[in-house]
């Protein structure tokens, strides 16, 4: 797997723009993304936001599906710990992301391509920062090894 990743990195096109799928909670990250837009904050454009009623709604199979279909990175963004609209949905999301990372590791896939973040609906700046953080991480890892032969 490491060899695969290394090969992919060496083949990184000059302007590699990581495709990131972000599963966002309606009550925090999604609203923060909206606010970031209103505030004209800029962040890498290749993030595809998917709105969830709560980060706890995310299923491990959704995370795997996004990676399987060629996302370079996948993130889940939920409310600050202790502030979940549904009490503990973000903790459920945290456990699911942790388990999904284990599932990826057992098949030799770099689990750094998946991450969980916490923020509030007022944190537009943080949202932009998170997207940038994730984009930078994925840039270092290079394109997903699963996109071979997949058309853009």
């Amino acid at each position, binding site marked *: 797997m490491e060899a695969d990743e290394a090969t992919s990195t060496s083949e990184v096109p000059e302007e590699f723009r990581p495709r990131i799928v972000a599963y966002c909670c309606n009550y925090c990250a999604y609203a923060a993304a909206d606010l970031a837009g209103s505030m004209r904050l800029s962040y890498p454009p290749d993030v595809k936001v998917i709105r969830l009623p709560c980060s706890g709604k995310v*299923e491990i*199979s959704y995370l795997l*599906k996004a990676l399987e279909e060629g996302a370079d990175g996948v993130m889940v963004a939920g409310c600050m710990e202790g502030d979940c609209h549904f009490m503990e949905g973000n903790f459920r999301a945290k456990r699911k992301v942790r388990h999904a990372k284990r*599932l990826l590791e*057992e098949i*030799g896939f770099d689990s750094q391509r998946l991450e969980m973040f916490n923020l509030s609906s007022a944190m537009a700046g943080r949202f932009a920062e998170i997207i940038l953080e994730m984009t930078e991480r994925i840039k270092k890892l290079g394109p997903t*090894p*699963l996109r071979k032969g997949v058309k853009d």
Partner: protein
Amino acid sequence: MIVGDRKPMDEILEMLEPYENILILGCGTCVTVCLSGGEREAAILAGQLRIWGKKEGKNLNIMEHTIQRQCEKEWVDEMRGHVEKADVVLSLACGVGVQLVAEMYEEKAIYPGLNTTFMGYPVVHGTWLENCRGCGNCVLAHTGGVCPITRCAKSLLNGPCGGSQDGKCEISKDTECAWQVIYERLKKKDQLDWMNSYQPPRDWSTAGDGGPRKSVKIEEVID
């Protein structure tokens, strides 16, 4: 319910190695409730295998399907179309389901995706405890509804033994002494006199050491 745990990935990959068209077959009853082999787990395992296949440059066709019960012929028969499209079926049912699927599709490679572990219930969400061995001669009436055959490491009928310390079994500090639990339970039921009654050696002939056991409901058998 029957509880199972997914087999280690290395073992699954080794079983599936020669095949390209793979059907992950979930079961909608016990293993769904114990979160190890239902529709959700079938989707997760299928996702893992697809990612693995793409990463390794293999041309795998991973299909997933879940039926209500893999331990009944009517249900297993209904998925014939799905089975025929596959080279191999990885069943996420308990051992009973895997065996029935294997019996009904004798020509097909049928492999188990789970290790069937025990019969039990969840003590807290995500943790299951073994409660019944299916020994065929239930003693729960005398033990406050706590099974010493299953939950006592020695399956004692006249416990506790000297290894009971502070309510725990000597085999592990995490294991409750079944006879301590029985004592507390009988006390609450005001049936502590049961503790003083001697239970003679039991008849173990029902417990399954004489080959597979059979249960016949004569009124239901159609001649």
